């Protein structure tokens, strides 16, 4: 039997936040010290998203071995 796991990571939300960060960083009004924090957060989100596309592979592989 397969148990379908619910991921905690909300990919759609993460993408929306990344879009927002990109827009903020591109905005010349944004302060430099703010940008550092935004860049850090974007790295975190990108890592999460990339892991979401791949990360849970090991767990999933076992599902089909009946």
């Amino acid at each position, binding site marked *: 039997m397969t148990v379908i796991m619910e991921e905690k990571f909300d990919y759609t939300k993460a993408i929306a936040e990344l879009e927002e960060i990109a827009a903020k960083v*591109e905005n*010349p009004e944004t302060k430099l010290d703010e940008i550092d924090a935004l860049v850090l957060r974007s790295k975190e989100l990108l890592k999460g998203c990339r892991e979401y596309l791949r990360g849970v*592979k090991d767990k999933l592989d076992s599902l089909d071995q009946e």
Partner: protein
Amino acid sequence: MGTDMATDYMDLLELQQRIKEGIEDAFPGRIWVKAEISQWSPRANGHCYLSLSESRDGRVVAEVRAMIWKWNYLQLKTFFEEAAGQPLQAGITVLVRVEVSYSELYGISLFIDDIDPAFTLGEAALERKRTIERLTAGGYMDMQKELALPPLPRRLAVITSRTAAGYGDFRRHLLENEAGYAFELDLYEALMQGESAPASIVSALQQARERGGYDAVLILRGGGSELDLACFDDYDLAVSIATCPLPVVTAIGHDRDVHVADMVASRSVKTPTALADLFLDAFMEEDMRLDTLESRITMAVMRRYQTLEGILDRALYRLRFAVESRLGKEEALLKVKEALIGASDPRKILSLGYVLVTGSDNKVLKSARGARVGERIGVRFSDGAVRARVEEVSEGQEISRLRSK
């Protein structure tokens, strides 16, 4: 019945012989007959025994035994299947050329010696057309079209035969992708060919629906006989696909034509590899989106720092220029002062040819009026001094006179 014994009778054999004669007189040559094959049993001896029937409103209204002699059987079967693209088997409607034969022992039987594949093709096409019309009338054709695949279809129910070569290809291609995208596959086994296939697929679909939680259901034929695809034109199967609340993607894989199952499904592709690509592409697109976002952010930050650096550079340049020009000014000022100072040095003046005159009291004589005739005075040059006596004192225009000398 009377008690008197009838004297006018015939033997059974004679009766059968007369029937045989009657039938064979009525059908002296071969005739073409349209019928459905209701039973089909090739035998080990090489002959093929079958039943031909006709149904109306779901009831059999005519039936007869038939056979194909072994010297005709293989040739006829091959010819039909190559031309019609489907197996010669029970359930199909055929147009066959028969010889009506009557045996005193076994009764009537049709000997088949020819078959018209074009007729069966036409029948199948007609049947398919009727199915499509029924589905259209029922509103089933576009039901699945409203179900879009989610942007990241990851949990997939696969309906196929475990042994199908195509299933292995699909699994490998999908799960062993280089990027390492993750998928969940659940296999729902079903018969993918033959008469029982539609019911088997419908039942697998039902199981997948009941389990739930899938992003899509895939129907993958993945191999087997290319002749046996009529099951994918089945009405009940089409309805079951159309009414599935999950998007159904078919990969029946036959380039000759599109099946009704393909038509009602949300999407359809030809090959197992194309099926895997459909899902891999969705993930790849997302990955590219992430790359784009990343480079947008990186570029923006770089631009910001470049601008900042520019501002700093310009500020530094102006500062340096200001300092330098300030320094230059000071230097010039110093030079002027130096020049001024230098100019007021009496020695410098003396070197130009002027002299310093002191009176007998050793004070500087600043005017002719201050000198008396006979007074001893000192005249100082830059390189020394002379003593002298005043002989005459005259006032005014002395300079011009001196110059005119």
